[in-house]
């Protein structure tokens, strides 16, 4: 095992990408970018990393370059955030449909407007249905581990799909955290050479991105969907393999003090930490509260969620994005739909909060718990969602 160092999470992420020995990094190096690509550019410039760094003119081009380089068999990384992801949107869908194992670090920040650079999940929710594997990280260590992990899963020939690693903007990207580095041998052992399933090469001509007529488009989409659904077993298997190597085991749905819990908070990303403190606080008062942290967003871990929810009576779902005029935040809608068939469905209380970097404290979580308890007693309509902490 490597050394444990205090380091900014973005820098550590870049160094993990360097350890993965990427061949091509394509990124637009201006706002809303993070130090991840800045540091990778430095590493390439100093020849610490032998890779092609392509400083493109827009995010749309960043993903286009990534598709091209992945298609010829180069291990490819890109990184973006908020508006950048919005601009890249079109090509993200293509990368998934072409089954190109690109890894993207997505520093989650809000989509404008109002103009904002701060952290929430509105960017990733805009590409929910892009077909990439999407997972969330809670700490700097998670981020470091998942940079290497993402390539391992993406490049598994049974998967061959892009992987998006979400990390909360500022809260993770700009934070200095203690992170245990892998040593190079470990990374090399974990992550074998990239052997693409399909490759553009003059020795054997193939067509990628062909026209799909109405008679075959549905079949193409079914095949793509099945690939994403089937990737779940490899995702879980690879977490196990990484756990055996590092001692840190990750799961699609992670639990915190869920034993005999009647109420469960459900969070994604860095909110897991503060929510667990709130659970401690409420447990001390004798409340039967626990926490579920949804790490895997796509493919959605249906069975794991159902098992984790167990007999809980209420789930407080925290959404960090708005689905304007919808049936709840994107996460709550999904959770409700996932549990609808259960005989005894838990009450879902949905709070939209933490938008554009607004702090949600331990006490705020405790207050949400109190509001939820009251809402159950008042039998409020389930489809209502609450903008927590909004001023009148």
């Amino acid at each position, binding site marked *: 095992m490597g050394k444990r160092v205090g380091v900014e999470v973005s820098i550590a992420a870049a160094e993990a990408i360097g350890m993965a020995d990427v061949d091509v990094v394509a990124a637009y190096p201006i706002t809303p970018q993070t130090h991840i690509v800045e540091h990778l550019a430095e590493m390439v410039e100093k020849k610490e990393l032998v890779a092609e760094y392509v400083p493109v003119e827009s995010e749309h081009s960043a993903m286009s370059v990534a598709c091209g380089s992945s298609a010829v068999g180069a291990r490819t990384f890109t990184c973006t955030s908020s508006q950048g992801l919005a601009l890249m949107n079109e090509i993200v869908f293509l990368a998934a*449909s*072409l*089954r*190109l194992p690109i890894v993207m670090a997505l520093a989650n920040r809000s989509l404008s407007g109002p103009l904002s650079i701060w952290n929430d999940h509105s960017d990733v929710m805009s590409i929910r249905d892009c077909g990439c594997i999407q997972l969330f990280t809670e700490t700097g260590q998670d981020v470091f581990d998942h940079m290497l992990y993402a390539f391992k899963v993406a490049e598994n020939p049974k998967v*061959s799909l892009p992987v998006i690693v979400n990390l909360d903007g500022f809260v993770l990207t700009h934070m200095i955290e203690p992170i245990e580095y892998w040593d190079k041998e470990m990374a090399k052992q974990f992550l074998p050479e990239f052997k693409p*399933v*399909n490759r553009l090469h003059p020795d*054997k*001509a*193939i*067509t*990628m*991105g*062909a026209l*799909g007529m109405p*008679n*075959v488009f*549905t*079949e*193409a989409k*079914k*095949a793509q969907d*099945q*690939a994403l659904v089937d990737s779940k077993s490899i995702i879980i298997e690879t977490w196990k393999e990484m756990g055996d190597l590092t001692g840190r085991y990750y799961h699609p749905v992670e639990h915190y003090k869920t034993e005999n819990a009647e109420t469960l908070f459900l969070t994604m990303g860095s909110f897991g930490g503060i929510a667990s403190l709130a659970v401690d606080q409420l447990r001390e008062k004798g409340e039967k509260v626990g926490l579920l942290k949804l790490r895997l967003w796509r493919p959605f871990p249906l069975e794991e969620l159902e098992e984790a929810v167990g007999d809980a009576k209420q789930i407080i779902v925290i959404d960090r994005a708005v689905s304007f005029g919808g049936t709840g935040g994107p996460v709550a809608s999904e959770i409700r739909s996932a549990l609808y068939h259960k005989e005894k469905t838990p009450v879902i209380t949905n709070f939209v909060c933490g938008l554009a970097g607004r702090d949600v404290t331990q006490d705020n979580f405790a207050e949400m718990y109190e509001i939820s308890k009251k809402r159950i007693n008042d039998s409020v309509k389930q489809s209502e969602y609450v903008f927590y902490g909004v001023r009148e």
Partner: protein
Amino acid sequence: MTEMIKDPGWKDLEVGFTISQSGSARQYRTGDWRSLRPIVEKSKCIKCGICYIFCPDMSIVKTEDGYFEADLYYCKGCGICAFECFTGCIAMVTEEE
């Protein structure tokens, strides 16, 4: 070249809808799109081949006697050949005629 499966099932498709058989576009009958057909008035044709050069779909073929004509399996009837022709020997007529 082997024929591709006409209506494949989803399991028949290659990963990422890749087509590993090259030149498969030849099997696609773009002539179906056509509403106008190029008709060559041979007496005016000077066999210069400008139609052959400009055809965006390479649907113009040279015949044994040195004239040029459209391969109607692929010709979409765009009319570029008629537009470019120096002598005006190509007329675009509607398919119904």
